[in-house]
């Protein structure tokens, strides 16, 4: 105990423990480099690229679907194939997607009656080719365990309070498919261009823990939150 810390508790565990998968990744990477399959520079360059993919592809898909009913139908019917129309090929890992053998992509449409939210309780499956790397919280046991069991409470913690006449539908991504939520187009966006619409379709709205608003983009400073 210190003068500024006057209660006793168990030591707080270091958050930077290395998991078995971290060890495995490092071991395989180093072996691959020793074997000459790729160089450390190749790996660095790849990671730099993979980590900056971002949710722009997903935003583009949703914005276009809001504007073009036929595109929307194609996207809902075959997400994998329709992604190619914006240059994302789930079947070609070295294209603009991230490496993945999980190539069944389904878009989940929110309606006035149904709100969708995605999770992977068994690991951290995420539609990386369209949303980039998953946020840290998405990968935590905390989110994964709780959103299936107490979805309304977890959404409320994100600031999302859904009306009582809306069905909350949790999608636990446990096999080959990857999911993304198509939020409803918010009011106040009439006459907007695809670029304008894409800017308000933020990552969290496509995970399903938030709703898009006409007065909000991910690029805005949080300090400017409109009330």
């Amino acid at each position, binding site marked *: 105990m210190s003068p500024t810390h006057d209660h006793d508790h168990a030591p707080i565990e270091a958050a930077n423990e290395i998991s078995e998968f971290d060890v495995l990744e490092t071991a395989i990477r180093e072996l691959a480099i020793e074997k000459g399959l790729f160089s450390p520079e190749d790996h660095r360059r790849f990671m730099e690229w993979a980590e900056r993919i971002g949710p722009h592809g997903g935003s583009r898909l949703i914005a276009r679907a809001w504007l073009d009913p036929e595109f929307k139908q194609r996207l809902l019917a075959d997400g994998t194939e329709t992604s190619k129309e914006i240059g994302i090929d789930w079947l070609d890992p070295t294209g603009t997607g991230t490496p993945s053998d999980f190539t069944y992509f389904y878009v989940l449409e929110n309606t006035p009656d149904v709100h969708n939210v995605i999770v992977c*309780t068994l690991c951290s499956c995420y539609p990386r080719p369209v949303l980039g790397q998953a946020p840290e919280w998405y990968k935590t046991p905390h989110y994964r365990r709780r959103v299936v069991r107490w979805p309304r409470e977890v959404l409320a913690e994100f600031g999302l309070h859904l009306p009582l006449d809306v069905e909350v539908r949790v999608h636990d991504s446990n096999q080959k498919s990857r999911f993304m939520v198509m939020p409803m187009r918010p009011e106040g966006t009439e006459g907007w261009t695809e670029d304008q619409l894409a800017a308000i379709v933020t990552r969290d709205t496509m995970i399903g823990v938030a709703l898009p608003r006409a007065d909000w983009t991910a690029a805005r400073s949080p300090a400017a939150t409109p009330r």
Partner: protein
Amino acid sequence: MRRFEIGDHVTVREATTLFHHRTQAYTRGHTGVVVEHRPEWLIPEDEAWQREDGRVEPFYVVRFRQRDLWPGYTGLDRDTLETEVAEGWLVPAEEGMQ
């Protein structure tokens, strides 16, 4: 040849989980309804051992009512959860469980 059609009520088996599988504990023993068909895929039990010529089964999207999955569910009766289940994990729901 698929065993289940869309709309069928199915129960997830309480089967052995000694090795790798991807059938969540919280779904096992619970009944839901088939809402979509998925392709036939290599099942995780064989894929985990890199048996590329392993067993292939039709998969299904099963929708559960949350109140059927969790004791004392605190949300609403209309809340649901969907997940994918391999055919081998499913049996027809018993009478009266629908």
